[in-house]
Structures are given as C-alpha cells and as structure tokens.
C-alpha cells in the first residue's frame, strides 16, 4: 500500500463516537514524530482536538502543540477572509465582518459554499506547502460526503465567478490517491460498521477522494481459543465455582462475578468479531483494514493519543 502518512492530505471520518478525533490526533502526532511538518484540523470545532492534545483552544490560524505539529479548528468565516485576502484580493478587508456574516448566511443556503471554504482551506495548505501532511478530523458520514463532493458539485451550480475557477486545482489534489486519502474509522459494533460500509460506497461514488484505509478502533483482545473456552465453561460450572470459592476463602458469588466478567469480555469480543467480519467482506481488497486494540487504561488526552499513535505505528 502507499504509505499512509506519505500522503499529503488525509480525511479521517466515520460515525460519531468511534474515535475520529483520537485517530486523527494520533496520525498527526505519529507523522510529526517522523519529522513531517503536520497540520491537524478539526472541521467541526467542538473542542475535541484540544481535549485530545490537552492544548487549549485551537484557533483557525493554528497552534503549535509539539515539534512539527500544528492544530487548528475550521472556521468558514475566517477561511473566507483568508480567501478574499490572498486570492480574490478584495479591497474590503477592513470591513469584512458584516460581509462575511452575510456571506456565511448565503452559504447556509447555497449548496457547497461552506463546504468549498472548508475543503479549499485544507487544499490550500497542501498546495502552498505550508505542511507536509494535513490530517483532517473530518465531519461524520453525511457531511463529509457533502464536503468532498463540493468541488465537483459547485461547478454545476456556479457557472461563473472566482469560486468556479478555484475548483480545478482542488480537484487535482483531491483525486490523486498518492496525495489524498480518506481514512474511515469504525468500532466493532453494529451501527458504526454499517455506516463505515455505507460511507466507503458513497465516497467512491460521489467524491473524488480515494479510500486510503479503514481503521477498526477499540478492538478487544481474543481471550480464549475454542479449547480454552471449553475449560472455561467447566470452571464456571457451579461445582467448580464452589470449589474455587472454598479454596480462595471467597464467596461463590464473588468467584462467579469474576468468571462472569470474563464471559462478558468473550461475548463483547465475539459480537465485535462478527461485525468486523462483515466489514472485511464489504471492504474486500479496496483498502487495508487496520486494527487498533482497545485501550485498557484510565488515561485520556495526550497520553492516550500517544498510546494510540504507538499502536498505529505498529500497524502501519
């Protein structure tokens, strides 16, 4: 496979709650540690990225959070301002406030305007070589397709004007699989897997962006093989439980609880495996499927990101 982090622009997406921000933050950290100048951008500024890096608010202009690593949040108004300033050379920069608000308002209604400002900014950072790699903590399923399809779609709507002229170079970056890729994150659960499969199809059909890989996050370890499971069943039988309790001077209920917890772990793992099987079947050979282990740890924030980055590094 093309080296994932060797690309220039990665859109990390998937269903809400699967750990998109964590994966994006970890990919960014990993790339920066490999010496690549990296920008991580949170498209929906909920503050998850600053929570992940424990770095305080991440502004549009970017915040250096570590060596080679910059974090930012998307802001379509600021993106418009930047665009007007750098590209359109519009002389009203001083009075941009109300204009931008009005524009934002129009953008709400006009298809693709907000999206193009988002995607445009990201492509711009790539084109200008401000960074070696831009990792996007992208929107969830529905919105990301809209964003990535915007440069194509806008041509149909806007027949003249600067915006139209701007889409060609964006498309060139977006449709080149060596440069740009989508990373779909999922967890081994029913809805996230279904949405991942659906999203892979929609990316292929509706957007210029190629699928770079699918990451199954929070995969539980296999506890028992088949032979061990038989032994476990015997151990969890009442006479064994009583025997163990007597031996350990514990109450049979507590021994049973310990064994029950193991059974729960086996059950969760097994449910998850079935969903991952479905995912593998649907994705096939279109893209590599990476597994990230469930983190049994109390930590979150940058320490968790480091752990995920380490596992990702091993998988890559």
């Amino acid at each position, binding site marked *: 496979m093309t080296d994932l982090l060797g690309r220039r622009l990665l859109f990390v997406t998937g*269903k*809400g*709650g*699967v750990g998109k921000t964590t994966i994006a933050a970890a990919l960014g950290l990993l790339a920066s540690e490999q010496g690549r100048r990296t920008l991580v951008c949170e498209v929906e500024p*909920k503050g998850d990225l600053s*929570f992940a890096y424990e770095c305080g608010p991440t502004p549009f202009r970017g915040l250096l959070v570590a060596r080679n690593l910059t974090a930012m949040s998307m802001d379509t108004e600021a993106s418009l301002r930047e665009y007007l300033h750098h590209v*359109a050379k519009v002389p009203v920069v001083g009075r941009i406030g109300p*204009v931008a*608000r*009005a*524009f934002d*308002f*129009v953008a709400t*209604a*006009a*298809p693709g*305007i907000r999206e193009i400002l988002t995607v445009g900014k990201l492509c711009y950072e790539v084109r200008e070589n401000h960074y070696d790699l831009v990792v996007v903590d992208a929107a*969830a399923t529905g919105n990301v397709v809209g964003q990535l399809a915007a440069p194509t779609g806008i041509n149909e709507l*806007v*027949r*003249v*004007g*600067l*915006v*139209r002229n701007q889409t060609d170079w964006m498309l060139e970056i977006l449709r080149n699989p060596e440069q740009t890729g989508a990373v779909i994150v999922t967890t081994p659960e029913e*809805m996230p897997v279904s949405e991942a499969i659906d999203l892979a199809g929609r990316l292929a059909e509706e957007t210029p962006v190629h699928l770079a890989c699918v990451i199954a996050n929070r995969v539980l370890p296999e*506890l*028992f093989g088949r032979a*061990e499971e*038989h*032994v*476990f*069943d*015997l*151990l*969890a039988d*009442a006479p*064994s439980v*009583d*025997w163990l309790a007597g*031996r*350990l001077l*514990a*109450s049979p*209920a*507590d*021994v*049973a*609880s*310990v064994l*029950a*917890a*193991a*059974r*729960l772990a086996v*059950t*969760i793992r097994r*449910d998850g495996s*079935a969903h991952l099987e479905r995912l593998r079947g649907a994705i096939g050979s279109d893209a590599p499927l990476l597994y990230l282990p469930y983190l049994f740890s*109390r930590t979150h924030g940058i320490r968790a990101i480091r752990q995920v980055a380490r596992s990702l590094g091993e998988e890559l």
Partner: protein
Amino acid sequence: MAPRRPSPLAPNRQRQVEQLIAAKEVVVACGPGGVGKTTVAAALAATAAARVGGRVLVVTVDPARRLADALGLAGLGNAASRVPDAAFEEAGVTPKGELYAAMVDMSESWDALVNRHAPDSRTAHQILANPLYQNITGRFSHGHDYIAMERLYELHEEGNYDLLVVDTPPSRNALDLLDAPSRMTDFFSSRLLRWLTVPYRSRLVNLASRPFYQVADRILGSQLLQDLADFFILFQTMRDGFVARAEAVNRLLSDIRTTFLLVTTLEAVPAREAQEMAQALAGRHLHLGLLVCNKVLPPALSDPAVAKVADLLGAEAPKLTAALSPELLDGEPSELVRSVLSEVAQSFSNFRLVANREAELLSELADLHDITATVGYLPGNITDLTGLLRIGASIWGEPEAPASGPAKVTKRTGAAERASPAKAVDRARSPRPIGSSAPSATDMATEHDGDHKES
C-alpha cells in the same frame, strides 16, 4: 422472577421512573451520537406502554430499519403505526397501553411546513419548486433539529397520545437542538435576510454600491445571487407563521409537561458532551428528568472485594490448577486450565480499569439531575421487543432476571447483602443471545422467554 430489589444507587427508582413518566406528556431524548439514543428512546416508550399504560408514541429521526424490525413493524413513516400486541406477546408481556411508532421524514415535514405557512398555494408551489429549496431544507443548519421539534409540537397539539417520546438527530453541538426554534425565529427576523432581499425587491437600490454584492458577485456570480434572493423573498412570506410556531415549540420544550432524557455512554468524550448538555438544559431551566447511561460494565468490576478474588485467582492459578480435581475439569490438560485462570484474572483487571473510570464519570454525571439509570451491555443486537423491554427494565431500576446458561453460577450465596455482584452475575450471563452470534451461548435462550413478563 427476580426479586425486586431497589438499587442502592437510587432507592425506589422504579417508582421514581413511573411517576416521572406518568406525570409527563413529552420526553425528548438527547445526547451524543453513537450511544444508543434511538434504542433507549424506543425502550422507554415500549416499557411505558407496557407498564404505565395509555397511548404512547415514539418518534424517531433515525431511518434505521432495525428499529422498525425490532418493533415488529414493516417500516416507519411520518404517519404513526401501531406496534402489534403480538410483538408484546412474543416478549411475554401483556401491555397496559398501546405503543405507536413514527419516523420524521425530513423532506415530507418541510413540505408540510411550507404548505401550512405560505400565504397561498401559489407561493407554496413556487417555494417547493425552487431549485434551492431542497438544498436549503437539507442543509439549513439545525434544520433537522428544528423539524424534529416542530413535529413534536404538532403531535402534542393533535393530542392523540398520552406520552410522546421523541428521538433527536445527533447534534454537532449540545445546544443545537435547544437553539433550533430560536434560530428559526432569528433567521426570519435577521437584518441579514432583509438586507439580502431588499435590493432585489427595490430596484432603486444600486446593487453594485454595496460591498457585499461586490464581493459576492465576484465570487459566486450574479445568477446564483439572483436565485438566492428570489428564494429568500418567497421564503420570507412564511415569516409570521414560522416565528409564531417556533415560539410555540419553545414554550412546549420548557413546559412542565415536558422532560428531557439524556442518553450517554460512560466513555470520556460522550460523557463530557452529555455533561455539557445537562448544564445547557439546567441553564435554560429545562427539566432533565432522566439520565440513562448505556452499555455500562457490570458494577462487580469495580467492587474491591470481587477484584481481590480475581487477583487471587490469577496469583494462585498454578496452585489451583494443581489442586483442582480432574473430575471437575473433564480431564482437560492442566496447562490449559492454568492459562484460562490467568486469562480470566487478566481480563478482569483490564476491564476493572474501564469500569472504575466509568464509575467516576457516572458519579460526576449523577449530580446533575434526579434519576440516573444504567443499562448494561447486551450481547448481540437489539432485534425485538424483548430486547427493548429488557433495556426498559434496567431503566426502571430492576435487577436483571436471574440467568442461567451453560455455566450455572446463579447460586446467590451472599448475594442478597450486596447488590452489585449478583447484578453482575446476572448481566454477564444474562440475556438470551439476541440475534445470532454467540454459538456457545445459544443454549441460554430457552430458559429466558418469560423473564420480563410482568406480574
């Protein structure tokens, strides 16, 4: 039948939940995405129909077929369908009331709104035919939130149901949902909208003199601007109707008959979002009646006494293996037995970390409202009413039904004094495998069909 033991966390939760449900007419389910909000909303509605009675309608925005299947319906649409009593019977329950389900069809609902608020049918037709209309309704930020709230209002007005449980779209931001009606009002009242439409109404104003148009023209092209202005002029004719309606929706949300159901899991990010949501509700004096924490690990995992046993089991694995009589173990090789014991201990200590973190998050969240319910992990997928009612039973605060299975460890020595371990036992071997997967668990199914039959 399981003994009715109030959970030590929330005494008399069952009564509390029933009182809450009986006192309210509207329950708005909210919470971060991916936590099982739709399922919990449906479970609450089904259980309310089964136990409290009356006509209960669950309205979902999630087009997932699975929910329709779980309710025994062929599909869900804007019109409510009644969940057949047969579905309840299959779950071993005779419902006191009636359960209905509907889905909010976004485009159908928008069309209905336009038809209602447009001054005449010609204008309505023009709006519906405008190429930007579909786009705006599909994308108008918070449009889905607004429609969900608006539909709720309409159903409440019609007064055909005793209890409405409405599921909400996953929001990017906790406040989106609550702000949706006000945003709609702001949208129509905004100077921006007038500013944008006035020049086209009054040709006396020279467009080119306005910096906005200079910029917008250059970027977007004048055709698009013209289309937009036309559309907004049409849209504005609906202003009064929309604004009045949005205000009425707001009143309903803050009405004493309405309560919010906040659903989350006890993972760091969703829990943080849920906390923000709870604070936002409090800040607006909206009533958060019930917090449901979904997919929570059994409490035994954070019980120090149980943890001690797990540690011992791991530490003593070689000795235990040596001493275990081969009869108990069918003559399985001792190598295997030792490794299983160690794995069990290791797995316990892994999940214990997670469970402790969950417990911490739970206690942080529990301060914010009256009733907290936890729902354990249920194996497989929820594919029928039995599964939904089982979740409902957890919300009602019932210990899960005594379980059986390939390993019969339901002997409850000492369990009565301490609620958690027994509950953990129940949970882990719990439920019949809903759905298909676990082969080793298939034989659990048979003994469970009557578990949730209410006495």
